[in-house]
């Protein structure tokens, strides 16, 4: 590896009223975002890579997630298990997450252990060691994770089915980030190595350091550790637009005690100004006990045990999801008309100002709680940078909530709910058996 020059300072950006992000970039393209925050003697070190399950090919689903697991095992300088041992001996914790658009790794450490995080992360960015036997055992771990989160989990199984229906099972937003089981089984060390070499490079990453640190010292140390790692030779593949959403409804028969319904509508991309409005709409419907659908279905009519809505924070258009879990013995035929009525009301009527203010307060509380800790701030910075292009995007989002008017909600409700939708009905296996028996008897 060749030596390189020091970090280039790219300026300061406010992160709220009291804090600022210092931005640097290395010659090899690595971006460094430092948030000095002396509120506790800790540091949170995040590495966000511009690679996720959307960068996989059909037939190799789960590659990004499996590689995330393998990144903790061994590198050229650190033998198996050493990564976790070093972090934990320093009193730290380390973990990672993968989704469609990104993969990120973090270490939360006492501030004095920052050099360790820089050393470990720079090492595994370019010198991962993939041993055949450990790849095989980690595939078993991922299969276990999949059993836990999808195959034996009603909600996980239904969500996987909803996305496959909405985007198609061969589109990256339609296949699960954890991967299809048959694909996970097919991986070996060589295929994982190829994925790693193609996607892990300094110009595909943003490092976020938040905590009790001196930005200049951090930048100098990061430059020494990462400066010689070569940039990637391949650009990220362009996103393949999914097929247009068509109205499709499917039934999933599972061992469960009650019916569920999942509805999916095409939603704005995360960076779209209307994304904030979609979040507000989900909160009007199901955000808290006084939200419209919770109040009507869970509390007053006693027909459901749970309702929830959310908008996928994808870089490209995701889904507005709405889930209803019926009480045992309650048919979805009694619930669905009420759900549809609540949706139509959003399309037709203006949300009263008082109700909108309540939702804004609730979202402001959620925002503040999200940045209460140093790791929380680091996560907001990394996520904002990767998905919206702005490390301080969380504050822009808060302003967007504050600006929202009833007319905005109605306009976006019309756009989202006025188009096609997909639906997953979850039917308890016992009910399905009864239904089939009745049909065969007639």
């Amino acid at each position, binding site marked *: 590896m060749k030596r390189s020059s020091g970090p280039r300072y790219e300026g300061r950006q406010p992160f709220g009223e009291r804090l600022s992000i210092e931005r640097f970039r290395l010659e090899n393209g690595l971006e460094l975002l430092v948030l000095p925050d002396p509120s*506790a003697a800790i540091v949170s070190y995040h590495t966000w890579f511009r690679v996720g399950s959307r960068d996989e090919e059909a037939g190799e689903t789960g590659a990004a997630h499996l590689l995330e697991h393998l990144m903790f095992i061994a590198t050229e300088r650190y033998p198996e298990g050493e990564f976790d041992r070093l972090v*934990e001996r320093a009193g730290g914790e380390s973990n990672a997450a993968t989704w469609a658009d990104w993969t990120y790794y973090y270490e939360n450490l006492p501030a004095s*252990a920052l050099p360790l995080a820089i050393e470990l992360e720079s090492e595994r960015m370019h010198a991962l060691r993939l041993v055949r036997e450990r790849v095989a055992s980690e595939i*078993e771990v991922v299969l*276990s994770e999949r059993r836990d989160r999808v195959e034996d989990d009603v909600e996980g199984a239904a969500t996987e089915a909803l996305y496959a229906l909405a985007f198609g099972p061969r589109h990256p937003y339609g296949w699960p980030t954890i991967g299809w089981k048959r694909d996970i089984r097919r991986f070996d060390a060589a295929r994982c190595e190829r994925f790693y070499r193609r996607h892990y490079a300094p110009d595909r990453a943003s490092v976020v350091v938040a905590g009790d640190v001196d930005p200049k010292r951090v930048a100098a140390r990061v430059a020494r550790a990462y400066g010689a790692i070569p940039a990637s030779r391949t650009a990220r593949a362009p996103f393949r637009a999914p097929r247009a959403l068509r109205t499709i409804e499917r039934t999933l028969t599972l*061992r469960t*005690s009650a019916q569920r319904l999942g509805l999916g509508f095409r939603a704005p991309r995360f960076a779209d100004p209307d994304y904030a409005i979609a979040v507000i709409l989900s909160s009007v419907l199901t955000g808290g006990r006084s939200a419209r659908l919770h109040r009507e279905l869970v509390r007053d009519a006693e027909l459901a045990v749970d309702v929830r809505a959310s908008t996928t924070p994808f870089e490209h258009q995701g889904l507005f999801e709405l889930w209803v879990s019926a009480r045992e013995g309650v048919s979805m035929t009694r619930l669905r008309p009420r759900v549809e009525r609540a949706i139509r009301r959003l399309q037709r009527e203006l949300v009263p100002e008082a109700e909108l203010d*309540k939702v804004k*307060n609730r979202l402001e509380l959620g925002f503040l709680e999200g940045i209460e800790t140093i790791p929380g701030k680091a996560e907001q910075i990394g996520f904002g940078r990767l998905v919206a292009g702005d490390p301080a995007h969380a504050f822009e989002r808060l302003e967007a909530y504050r600006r929202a008017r009833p007319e905005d909600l109605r306009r976006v409700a019309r756009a989202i709910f006025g188009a096609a939708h997909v639906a997953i009905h979850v039917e308890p296996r016992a009910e399905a058996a009864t239904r089939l028996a009745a049909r065969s008897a007639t």
Partner: protein
Amino acid sequence: MSREERGLSRPFRARTARGIDLHVETDATLPLVDVSLLLRGGAAQDPEGKEGVARLHARLLRRGTRRFSPSRARSLPAASADELDEAIESLGGTLSIDVTPSAVRVGGTVIRRNLEPFVALLASLLAAPALRRADLAYVKREADAQLAALADEDRWLASRALRHTLFGAHPYGRSMIGTRASIAAIRHADVLAHHEALVRSDGLVVGMAGDVSPDLAQALVARYLHALPRGPGEDRPIADAPRLRGLHVVLVDKPDRAQAQLLIGARGVRLGEPAFYPMVVANTVFGGTFSARLVKAVRSERGYSYTATSRLHADRARDAWIAYTHPSIDQLRDCLALELELVRDFVSGGVRAREVAFAKSYLEGSHAFERDTASKRLEPHLEASLFSIGERFFTRPLEHVRAVDAASASRAVRRVLGGRDGRADDLVVAVLAPRKLERSLASLPGITSFRTIPHLAALSLGSDARARGASLE
């Protein structure tokens, strides 16, 4: 040495004229305040056969209030459940009422500008709840529905079976949510009696953390919480459950599973006892980090289970130590045999000096993350006040951790998990898996008792004192 150890981080503390123990940790970094009202006496006080009273009471508190007049100058009108929910959320607040065996915590977080109405609202829930008979019927139906939904929660079902087998009729073995039968048996008078015994100003522990000064906190407590009835709440002590002798296996039969839920448990330690911190260190060695023995053997080397962890549940009597994994159905027997071997080795071989040094290093370093927000800094002080165990036990954990060595940790493991002859045989294994695995599991050596229950029957465990399927010491 941390800030708190140097005495630099002591929250404000005061006992009010009405016997309320107030703790305040001021931190104006964000315009947020966490408020906690801690009442002594939780689900452990539920009468036998009426498990679920404390939890139903908690749900009932949110169903409405009467007019609340804490002083002549201040008054809150009566509020319906709908109005209460609207009010909390309009303030930019969250409210939760959590029931544990030993306490009830009413609390939440609110945006600073709405602190006063939020505290007033919390006080009205406790001082002037409607507690209507019709609402009790409502929350009973709600509890039944939630119980039915728990049939989908495999880990919860296995955990219920483990606790029931391990603790029997002891409060830690009974179901806090209740069972269909126990919920049906609860009468309006039971809930009123529970409220009467629980909600008193003397001994109430109040915590406020965040953008709030001690002066303001004191003023709010005096303004709103002094309206609570005087006198100490009724809180009976919890005795330790008798130790279960032998290796007992309970299989919760649930068909069509791709994986098993596997829990291994034993009676653990109580808060304040000398073995507590040695067990904290020993548990870190066994299953508390990614480098721990359980994780290495079960996950890293064999890929049996994504999750592999062990935990000490802590309360004022000896609660449980539980190890948890979820191997595939095909690997269940091998995984269980391996884990039993790991536990036996843990007991007979103890922990090594280098493992203890590693665990202590981890616990010391990570302590900063236990104190990185105002509410986290306040929490040990609230616990000390609630449990009356001695402040240093909670507020100076590192002093205790540093004093642990391999000998004391090994001794604690032998005492807590070891059987009569020092071997790890006093264990309960709860497995959720299809019944077809019964024979394979029952053939494991050293099992004292084995029983199988349908998974829906696990929802009914915890209100029948005679149902414990094992011999007691």
